[in-house]
């Protein structure tokens, strides 16, 4: 998943917003994306950029992830309008119900779209999942392939030393 650089002018922006409308996104979803785009254009103009060649970095979100993000935002907007407080229980069920890949995507989306609540929620959930896991299991979750310290074939020294010196941390 790489960051996309999408150069477009004002007419293209309108075009994208129209597309968003046409795929019947919820009003909130549109708001989020158009906010992001507006914000980025503003900062581009403010820093002396040319309006015809605005570059907007759009987070690469799959439709599925975006739908989840919108579900989250919608719920939070509703509950903050109604009661003024957010339901921790709903948050827990929402984030607990997604699989690891989606969780990572939501985490990234929360970060890219600057939705702090979602970012924190996903970070906590990922943190919670990591408790009690072995380094090998962590490597799977984060898809890390580089230089495993504990594998005996490669640079075993340091990793083994950690395991030997702190056996209680590995129990």
């Amino acid at each position, binding site marked *: *998943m*790489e960051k996309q650089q999408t150069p477009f002018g004002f007419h293209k922006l309108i075009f994208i917003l129209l597309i968003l409308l046409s795929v019947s996104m919820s009003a909130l979803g549109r708001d989020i994306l158009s906010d992001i785009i507006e914000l980025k254009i503003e900062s581009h103009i403010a820093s002396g950029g040319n309006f015809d060649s605005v570059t907007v970095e759009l987070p690469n979100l799959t439709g599925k992830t975006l739908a989840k993000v919108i579900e989250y935002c919608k719920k939070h907007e509703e509950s903050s309008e109604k009661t003024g407080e957010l339901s921790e229980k709903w948050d827990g069920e929402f984030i607990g119900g997604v699989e690891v890949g989606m969780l*990572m995507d939501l*985490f*990234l989306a929360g*970060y890219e779209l600057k939705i702090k609540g979602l*970012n924190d929620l996903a*970070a*906590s959930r*990922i*943190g919670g999942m*990591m*408790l*009690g*896991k*072995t*380094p090998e299991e*962590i*490597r799977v979750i*984060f*898809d*890390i392939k*580089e*230089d*495993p*310290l*504990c594998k005996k074939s490669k640079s075993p020294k*340091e*990793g083994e030393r*950690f*395991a030997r*010196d*702190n056996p*209680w*941390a*590995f129990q």
Partner: protein
Amino acid sequence: MSDYIPQELILQILTRLPPKSLLRFRCVSKSWCSLISSPNFIAMHTRQLTLSNHFTSNTRTLIRRYDLNQRKELYSVHFDTNQSFNIDHDAQIEFPFSGFVPSYFRIVGSCNGLLCISDDLLGNKDTIILWNPTIRRKLNLPIPHATLESSEENVGVLGFGFDCNANDYKVVRLAYVQRGDWYKVPPLVEVYTVKEGEWRGVSAPAPRYCIAEHFWSQAFVSGKLHWIAFQRSGGRGSMVSCLVLWFDLGNEVFGEMVLPESLVRESPMNMALGVVAESLAVFQSNRCMSGRCCSIWMMREYGAVESWSRLFNTDLDGHLGIPLGVRKNGEVLMAARSGELISHKTRTEGSRNLGIFGTKSSFYVDSYCESLVLLLEGKEVKGTEASDSESDSSEEYEEEEEEEDDEVQSREHFVELAMIQFLTALLSEF
């Protein structure tokens, strides 16, 4: 996947994890290892920890006591909730320094998961250790200059806390030398910082107050260390008045604050400082047992002396003991004279035994948190260790230990009685 997760996000996750997991995850990859072991990460992790402690209601309490059956110091961590005070079995702390002293250490204080312990309670040997029980790291402090370079025996009063501007942990030592029927003031002041790794003097003038030998305690609040100090209001034979002496760990200057009026004339050995709901608190009880009154005062707004308010006041029915801390639900943790920890509600509603036993003066209560502090500076603690440099003396202790089963209890009793008599004579009017 990790390729596209920015490091900022990895940090967001890792700073939330407990130290034990992080030690293990150093094995995940080289970049994770160097990240977790970096001073910046450790500082960030500690900041996150103090923040989350501030916001979560799920607080944990550390209890220490000397167990007469097992003949060693026992530590346990408890979830402090409204109803229960259950042990957190995941946070097991094994005390590794049993070979050092014949009884138990004084816990000077704790800060960000680091404990400062000293062996001056029942036999002064100037051993001061910073200990992180979670990651099993320790740092032995060097002998202070006041002890090394002077022929006169001094009494050390310690303080321990964190200087957040310098991102450094500091131990302060006030060395008092007895002169005739009084202590020589000002005391010699030295500061040890973990980054500097040695004792040095401070440039600000030392305070002209005394602190009660043996019975002193300190509290770290608002970046300052606090002790109960006292002075003679007039010349020889005049009354003694008490106050709070503080030392700012940032700019390293001393200052003072007044105590609630009813405590000014109280004997300094009857007062201990502590922290209640992140505020400075005075725990007042009677060591001599002639009076039974016991009270807890709290400074609701730091620095505002008019905000001293009495949280708790009770006429003890003899069996209750020394107040140690206040729980989230308002109940007071006390060490009963019988040697059991009790949670005291009110006089009418009574108190509940918590089933935690120890000698009455060995109880220590503090909030508990887990951090990576000392991961880089500290040495690994391996199992139960005897003193590195003083193996001779530990053997000596072992022999003493075998004499009697309740040796520690009688030593505790004897030392306290002697100190009470000594201080009472010192403080009384002539």
